[in-house]
């Protein structure tokens, strides 16, 4: 909490040297100070975040030409944006780039970064916040990097189906331990301040208030020494690289199949072949990047980037919610409460069972650890999360999130207890996944201020939250809930109050088909492998165990009861399994034995027929949701399914996949499956609208 004095003093101002009062020509501010230190400050027009676009590179040419003539004492490159150094390349330009021959453009970019690298004077990048992708590459073209505490470097390209394309693939391995460099590029992980310093990406770490002094020292040659290690020299030899590359391929294959995600493999090939030779690597990087840019994977992953942005846009505005009361300290309630507290809200977690509250606190500590919070951040988050057996928090809460048992009677009792205790104007939301909101709204204290806020398991990982409105939900209530999702770092998808809403409606036929297949004698491992082969992050049987078989059963039952469309029959043995307490991961045993961690499903190929039997029912349900207006549009469905279930991102989402594969072909497949397997495969009539 910032007090009035610090609020008055405002945020720390960025040290911009002589460019402080210079208006940017377009995207850059440039000036040289009295000590002949030339500053180039990136200040991209019309945006609060710097991205490295074609225009940014083109303008840089003029500035570098001038610096080559003027021969200043030193050159400083930094960002004028509070948000950070630069978020990377301008992704919206990727599609055009792929069309118009990326290689030429890349060569142009490489040319200018090479000229910066060749400047005779010391070149210094001052990095605050994140320097990602092309931003990182710009910093790498400088001799030295001064990192402001809290800043970070990263190459997230691999998440877009690409690898670094502006020299990162050879400049980073030349700067630091090549294996560490490859790991950063292959995983897309960010090196935060301490790691960046340890790896040697940053030459020094300081505070914003010391930037001027640090720049003066570096400009006068007073910078810490660098050393290139033994490892780098060893890996200059190809046989050594071959051994390392084999290991990298093995590691990569654990999370990304080569035909689904070619980029990391292309990067490993590149390094294995040319790792000792920067010039050759540069040429090869350009070719490889241009080729990857044209793959479906890259196009679809770029699409996913924009799907996320569009979901995030719906989360704009301020929720006005600072205090949250969560009812029910089961797994979901506990995780929702912990996550909300971590993200800065003041949270009370109500449950009459104090042992359950204790367990929730233990989970919260684990979640803080998983989220890499410092000990002070953990202390603050846990202080903001008050176990509340007496329900004191209800009276102060701006938002109450009910995460009680999926029993209408229990919920009705909870709601009636809230009626006189909630404050004026507070919102009541439910995390129900299987009950209809319209029915619950009748027993809610105020139907207009009642909506669904449906989180996915595990809450700290799954980014999507369904914001479910019923006909009486006030517009400002769903808007505020969407904004609330944004404030706690989640992506809201506003959906209608239909059975299973969107995500569970689509996911349940897939899960139930897996049960039917097991009934037919197909092994659970074969089923899970088929889904993995398609590109799902885990198979349906593993997923069912993870979500909890009791919850799956509940959702399946209520969907079967509420839906007109026929569903796969819920097998009797599933019910027995739940009754016997083998409810999945949380119980240590479900379909798989979880006592020794995640199950091993082995590897091997999968039957395409099996893949279709699992995936097509999910696609069909998505088409139905679009036709029935449960979701807003194709993109929302794709975004929701990717961020709630991990639906194969490189396929661009279920709707995109359907359209790419051909709605006619899928419709025919469904019809033939229906003939053999039963009515549950009958294609929804919405398929014809897609053609």
């Amino acid at each position: 909490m910032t007090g009035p004095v610090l609020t008055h003093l405002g945020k720390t101002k960025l040290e911009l040297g002589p460019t402080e009062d210079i208006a940017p020509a377009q995207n850059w501010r440039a000036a040289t100070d009295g000590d002949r230190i030339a500053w180039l400050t990136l200040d991209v027009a019309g945006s609060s975040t710097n991205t490295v676009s074609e225009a940014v590179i083109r303008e840089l040419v003029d500035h570098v030409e001038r610096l080559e003539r003027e021969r200043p004492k030193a050159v400083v490159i930094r960002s004028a944006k509070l948000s950070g150094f630069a978020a990377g390349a301008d992704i919206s330009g990727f599609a055009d780039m792929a069309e118009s021959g990326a290689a030429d453009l890349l060569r142009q970019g490489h040319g200018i970064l090479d000229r910066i690298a060749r400047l005779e004077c010391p070149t210094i990048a001052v990095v605050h916040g994140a320097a990602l992708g092309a931003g990182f590459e710009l910093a790498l073209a400088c001799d030295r990097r001064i990192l402001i505490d809290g800043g970070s470097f990263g190459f997230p390209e691999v998440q877009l189906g690409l690898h670094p394309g502006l020299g990162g693939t050879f400049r980073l391995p030349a700067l630091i331990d090549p294996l560490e460099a490859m790991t950063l590029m292959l995983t897309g992980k960010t090196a935060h301040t301490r790691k960046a310093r340890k790896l040697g990406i940053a030459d020094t770490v300081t505070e914003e208030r010391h930037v001027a002094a640090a720049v003066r020292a570096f400009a006068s040659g007073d910078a810490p020494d660098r050393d290139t290690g033994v490892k780098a020299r060893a890996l200059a030899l190809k046989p050594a690289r071959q051994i390392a590359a084999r290991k990298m391929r093995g590691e990569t294959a654990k999370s990304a199949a080569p035909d689904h995600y070619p980029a990391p493999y292309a990067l490993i090939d590149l390094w294995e072949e040319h790792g000792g030779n920067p010039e050759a690597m540069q040429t090869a990087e350009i070719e490889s990047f241009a080729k990857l840019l044209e793959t479906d994977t890259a196009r679809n992953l770029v699409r996913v980037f924009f799907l996320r942005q569009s979901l995030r846009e719906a989360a704009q505005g301020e929720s006005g919610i600072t205090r949250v009361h969560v009812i029910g300290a089961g797994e979901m309630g506990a995780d929702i409460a912990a996550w909300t507290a971590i993200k800065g809200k003041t949270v009370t977690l109500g449950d009459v069972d104090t042992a359950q509250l204790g367990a929730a606190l233990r989970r919260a500590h684990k979640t803080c650890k998983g989220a890499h919070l410092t000990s002070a951040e953990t202390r603050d988050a846990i202080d903001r999360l008050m176990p509340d057996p007496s329900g004191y928090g209800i009276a102060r809460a701006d938002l109450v999130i009910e995460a009680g048992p999926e029993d209408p009677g229990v919920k009705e009792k909870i709601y009636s207890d809230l009626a006189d205790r909630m404050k004026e104007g507070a919102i009541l939301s439910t995390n129900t996944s299987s009950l209809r909101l319209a029915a619950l709204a009748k027993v809610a204290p105020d139907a207009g201020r009642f909506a669904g806020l449906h989180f996915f398991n595990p809450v700290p990982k799954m980014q999507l939250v369904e914001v479910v409105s019923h006909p009486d939900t006030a517009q400002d209530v769903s808007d505020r809930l969407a904004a609330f999702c944004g404030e706690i770092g989640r992506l809201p998808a506003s959906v209608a109050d239909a059975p299973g809403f969107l995500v569970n409606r689509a996911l349940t036929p897939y899960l139930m088909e897996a049960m039917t297949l097991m009934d037919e004698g197909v092994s659970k491992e074969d089923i899970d492998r088929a889904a993995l082969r398609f590109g799902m992050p885990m198979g349906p049987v593993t997923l069912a165990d993870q979500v909890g078989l009791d919850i799956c059963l509940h959702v399946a039952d209520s969907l079967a009861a509420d839906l007109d469309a026929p569903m796969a029959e819920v097998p009797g043995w599933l019910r027995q399994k739940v009754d016997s307490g083998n409810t999945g991961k949380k119980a240590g045993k479900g379909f798989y034995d979880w006592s020794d961690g995640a199950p091993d499903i082995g590897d091997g190929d999968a039957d395409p027929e099996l893949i279709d039997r699992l995936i097509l029912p999910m696609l069909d349900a998505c088409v139905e949701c679009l036709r029935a207006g449960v979701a807003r549009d194709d993109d929302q469905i794709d975004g929701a399914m990717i961020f709630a279930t991990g639906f194969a991102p490189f396929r661009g989402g279920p709707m995109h996949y359907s359209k790419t594969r051909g709605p006619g072909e899928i419709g025919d497949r469904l019809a033939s499956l229906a003939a053999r397997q039963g009515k549950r495969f009958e294609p929804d009539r919405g398929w014809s609208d897609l053609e």
Partner: protein
Amino acid sequence: MTGRPVYLVDGARTPFLKARGKPGPFTPVDLAVQCGRPLLARHPLPETAIDLMILGCVNVIADEMNPARVAALRLGLPTQTVAFTMQINCGSGMQSIDTAYRYIRDGSHDMILAGGTEALSHSPLVLRDEAVEWYAGLAQAKGAVDMAKHMKDLRPGFLKPVIGLERGLTDPITELNMGQTAEVLAHRFGISREDADAYAVESHHRLARAQTEGWLAGEVEPAFDSDGGVHDSDDGVRPDSDMDALAKLKPVFEKPYGKVTAGNASQITDGASWTLLASEAAVEEHGLTPLARIADSDWAALDPSIMGLGPVLSATPIAKRNGLGGADIDLWEINEAFAAQVLSCLAAWDDESFCRDVLGLDAAFGQIDRDRLNVDGGAISLGHPVGTSGNRIVLHLANAMKRQGARRGIATECIGGGQGGAMLLEAA
């Protein structure tokens, strides 16, 4: 007393957790946060309603200098809320209330959170002075040879730490341990081992009854540790305590003939307590229902070797000033540092010459019936987190008065070093 009326609006404490030979799950500030959160949560006050926070704490740990301020910020109070920590040894938790009371009475403040906290299980192990000097020398050693030379001065005894708590419970002037001061009183006032043990048994039984009856609900709020542990009640209580079991215990402070045992002394415990004090204006503005009104307070000092008589010396002037005789006080809370010490206070009040010569009364103050004294147990069954106990007895007195419909009550404690503090409450 002149000045504005001051109300004790509400309060909450953690369960008192017996120290079990290793640091407990909570630091002093953790404890203050654990019970402060529910207290603040049940009073939806505007953010700036609380003018000041005062916290008593004797054993401050190195990571939490001025624990009051650390607690205020961790409780989410605005950055501009002033908070300070007070220390008068065992009286700290009451001194915070008394200071708040005087500030509000005099008109400079309207609402103050006053508490006490102590984590005796976190008392540091202290190095001997010789060892500290040796370490300092080692740090200044220049080069390997010098360092090696210095190493040979290392003595095994340096590694044997002194338990800080033991030192803290020893009066530095008389070099008597607190338990020894109780032995002195037992001797002076003729308190037998049996009397002391009988008192202790009753303390346990009373606390056990209060727990079973739910009389501590709201006063004690559960504390949750990072391992998922839930601490929901005072865990030092022994409901099945009896004379036979206590008789088996050996004296701990003056072996082998002494009378003070671990069984008839207060327990070493962690715990925190808060009280919310408000002026009449604040009570009205925020629509609060006070528990009690603070009517008077006083402090007194005497020879450190008989510190246990502090209650007699501090409470009697209040009674005199307010024209109250022994029979006018409906309920008493006298902190149970030691059974022999409480019984000595009662004996002193019942001793005509003591009352005349020392207290300046015309006659004996009179007997204090056991059914008006520490009705729900005390530090012998609950434990005595030194900086907290004074706060707890005031809060519990207010709650017990409300439950019994009592009109007047006094909470009072003895203070290591030879002092006493007392506070008079009246029904609101």
